[in-house]
């Protein structure tokens, strides 16, 4: 099995302000492969909750434009996940 790489995968942090925006995230999860980091799964997403999810670079642009169109509050926590995966080993061997 070939290991999975996450080159230029992104982690978004979105703050749905109301039920409508929470449902937009749930709809995005139906048509895109969102890996929820917080909460654990799409059906826990609710208004006024911080929602973190990982998404591939390919899908991130369309997701970002949906968030923009709906004037949703979001930030990109991680711009290239693979880079962060490699950077986590930042302590030298003894």
């Amino acid at each position, binding site marked *: 099995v070939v290991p999975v790489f996450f080159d230029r995968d992104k982690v978004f942090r979105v703050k749905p302000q109301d039920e409508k925006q929470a449902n937009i995230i749930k709809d995005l999860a139906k048509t895109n492969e969102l890996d929820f980091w917080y909460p654990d799964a799409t*059906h826990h997403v609710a208004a006024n*909750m911080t929602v973190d999810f990982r998404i591939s670079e390919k899908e991130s642009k369309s997701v970002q434009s949906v968030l923009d169109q709906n004037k949703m509050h979001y930030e990109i926590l991680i711009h290239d996940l693979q880079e962060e995966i490699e950077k986590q080993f*930042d302590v030298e061997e003894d």
Partner: protein
Amino acid sequence: ISGRHSYAKYNNWDKIVAWTEKMVNKCPEMVSRIKIGSTVEDNPLYVLKIGKDERRKAIFMDCGIHAREWISPAFCQWFVYQATKSYGKNKIMTKLLDRMNFYVLPVFNVDGYIWSWTQNRMWRKNRSKNKNSSCIGTDLNRNFDVSWNSSPGTNNPCSDIYRGPAPESEKETKAVTDFIRRHLKSIKAYITFHSYSQMLLFPYGYTTKLPPNYEDLNKVAKIGTDVISTRYETRYIYGPIASKIYPTTGSSLDWAYDLGIKHTFAFELRDKGKFGFLLPESLIKPTCKETMLAVKFIAKYILKHTS
């Protein structure tokens, strides 16, 4: 990843197994290793018993139930190291270990942890095969026999929180629940370690109803988070799972509580999302040091307030 085991680094499963052997050899009078079962892929599930006497109060601690939450197993290793190193030197730890035992499960979801090292760093579940589905794995923290029908978790094997075909369907879950049931007389507290989001949580997850000893649990969690902040001013929040985060079913915390262990806590360790599951190794030690303060406080409280 070459090199030796290090408390300042993330260690793969082979290094952790070797480390368990080293700890037993180094402190045979204090540390014993118990094989409580094996995983779906036949890896051993090891609990380290820290303490000298069978008949004492005990605290059960598990780490690594979700594969990608690497800071969690790092903390369990740190705890065992600190407990054995400071016995006879640190007054509180000496008193704790003279009067109670700790059962530490350094990695609960061994197969998933190995997978997160070798194939997919973002893996969460175990690696069991699901009937009639090509999707792999069960979320072990939805597989416990509690509130199974009250608000059915997801039955979709492809979901990251798939609860499994039945309560305790997973070998890992069964091994842990059997061990805890066998030692129920002595186990006075259950603490499980996850990441991320810096929270100290207690029951219930499956209902917003408050547990009968809510005041007690809330007080312990509040002081525990205060103690954490004394080291590096790290801010944790605390409270019942269902109201603090969201309702979840089948969790180990609720199962242990309803079994009769009336002090059960879940730590969501650092951080709050800047790195998420990819907490850099340079933050392992500060995270472990501050968490140690809270765990020692909880242990002291259990020692004093449980019969």
